[in-house]
């Protein structure tokens, strides 16, 4: 059995979710190749070649792959699938965009967001916003799988795989990239950050959200997250959203400020190592999962926390 992992990268560098997906792939087979599809992505491919356990890296490049168009990624992967029994993709918004297309073209089910590999054909995945775990057995000859990266440890370095060029698939004439607005931030990326500071609806406005949450995040070297309620209310951009319908994170430290702890938010952060909750409502459900809870108004608690961190040399 050979497995293809489709890398998550920004052309210049490889995202940590790729290493974690390689770990999931190695649980299926010892023959794991990584496809880097992009434009000017040699650096990402070289990084993939260094992942321990990777047999070979395939590099496909075109303008459309650089733009991440789903049709182009699918057309690149399909001709390769003759040589693989499974294809694994990190369940990022990009992975979720193209992976189901590959499954449909192969006429197989997609096994979405697995958190555990039980055997070659059996996997565990969360359903109902993480309130239940489903163990499914696939009868398909080829498996198309997306991987919840936070559920797997990152494969280390130490590999020396070869990098081989493969043809980029033809792009669809029916889709055209127009532009993108990516938020440039000096903060770590939310999905892979060691510390996450998240704000909720209690912030009351976008100005208050950035005034309270961002300085604390910067003091801790943390990424910024938000509850769905805060995103819904327009206090924070959608890609800050932590939860079942947003990003699933599992940092060393998760700080929830003014977040009540709706089921769908808990689903996105309950695997964090240490959870801190600051909320003035002592009955907020967030306290049921928090290791350390501080019942206080964030308006006074956050400045005090900033001062205490300064006093502690942070």
């Amino acid at each position, binding site marked *: 059995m050979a497995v293809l992992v489709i890398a998550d990268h920004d052309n210049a560098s490889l995202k940590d979710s790729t290493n974690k997906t390689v770990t999931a792939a190695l649980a299926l087979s010892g023959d794991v190749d990584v496809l880097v599809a992009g434009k000017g992505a040699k650096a990402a491919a070289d990084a993939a070649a260094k992942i321990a356990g990777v047999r070979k890296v395939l590099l496909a490049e075109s303008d459309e792959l650089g733009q991440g168009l789903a049709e182009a990624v699918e057309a690149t992967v399909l001709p390769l699938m003759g040589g693989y029994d499974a294809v694994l993709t990190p369940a990022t918004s990009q992975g979720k965009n193209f992976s*189901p297309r590959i499954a449909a073209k192969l006429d197989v089910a997609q096994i979405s967001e697995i958190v555990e590999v039980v055997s070659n054909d059996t996997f565990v995945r969360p359903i109902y916003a993480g309130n239940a775990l489903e163990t499914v057995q696939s009868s*398909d000859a080829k498996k198309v799988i997306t991987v919840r990266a936070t559920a797997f440890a990152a494969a280390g370095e130490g590999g020396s795989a070869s990098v081989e060029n493969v043809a980029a698939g033809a792009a669809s004439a029916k889709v055209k990239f127009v532009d993108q607005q990516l938020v440039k931030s000096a903060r770590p990326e939310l999905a892979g950050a060691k510390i996450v500071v998240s704000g909720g609806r209690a912030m009351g406005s976008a100005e208050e959200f950035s005034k309270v949450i961002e300085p604390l995040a910067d003091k801790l070297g943390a990424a910024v997250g938000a509850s769905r309620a805060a995103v819904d209310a327009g206090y924070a951009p959608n890609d800050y959203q932590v939860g079942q319908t947003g990003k699933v994170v599992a940092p060393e430290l998760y700080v929830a400020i003014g977040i009540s702890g709706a089921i769908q938010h808990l689903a996105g952060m309950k695997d964090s190592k240490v959870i801190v909750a600051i909320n003035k409502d002592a009955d907020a459900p967030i306290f049921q999962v928090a290791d*350390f809870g501080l019942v206080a108004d964030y308006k006074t608690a956050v400045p005090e926390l900033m001062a205490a961190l300064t006093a502690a040399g942070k």
Partner: protein
Amino acid sequence: MKVLVPVKRVIDSNVKARVKSDQSGVDLANVKMSINPFCEIAVEEAVRLKEKGVATEVVVVSIGPAQAQETLRQALAMGADRGVLIQSDQDLEPLEVAKVLKAIIAEEAPGVVIMGKQAIDGDNNATGQMLAALLDWPQATFASAIELSADKAKVTREVDGGLQTIEATLPAIITADLRLNEPRYASLPNIMKAKKKPLDVKEVASLGVDLTPHLKVLKVTEPAKRSAGIKVESAGDLVANLKTAGVL
């Protein structure tokens, strides 16, 4: 332009799903069911397109048990014109749902399909992409803004790290993300009017689609519970505890 909106009947998003003690699935007996929140956003978008004069007809289609008629009526009360229920008592996987939708699309010939990005029960986030692949139509997933012209859809998409805008030639599949719009509440007069709107019911078997499952659910279990920790008295206390825990 005709807009087709597939909708799914799911557990109400405010209800906590409970796993059955025999591990056969999630207990849905006597549980409040509603339209899937992302499908509701898709319906709202289609109705707004009609109100703007861009869409001429909004057809909602659901695949599910007889009770999914209630879900369709919910969408009709929001302003959709016509409903189609493809009755199936079998819980279909996304690929089979996409195949059934492809068969409906062959009959209805919509100019665009707007659907939710994900159902909150199976959490697959796959059906729209699969449907686009099966039809060889362009896809624009996770939409936060849609501009429709006669033959093109300009769609702003929520991607990792920001937004991306793409232009798709119609017909196309668009999947709705959270920030696309805020769905309206149906007014009582509109709920009454919706009862008289046309709603066709067809048996799924009549479509001649292969519905053989690819996945077998071996068991459904509850995730490990996280237990509550301690309450700290002050910010200083909190920092001291975090240092002890080794995360600062």
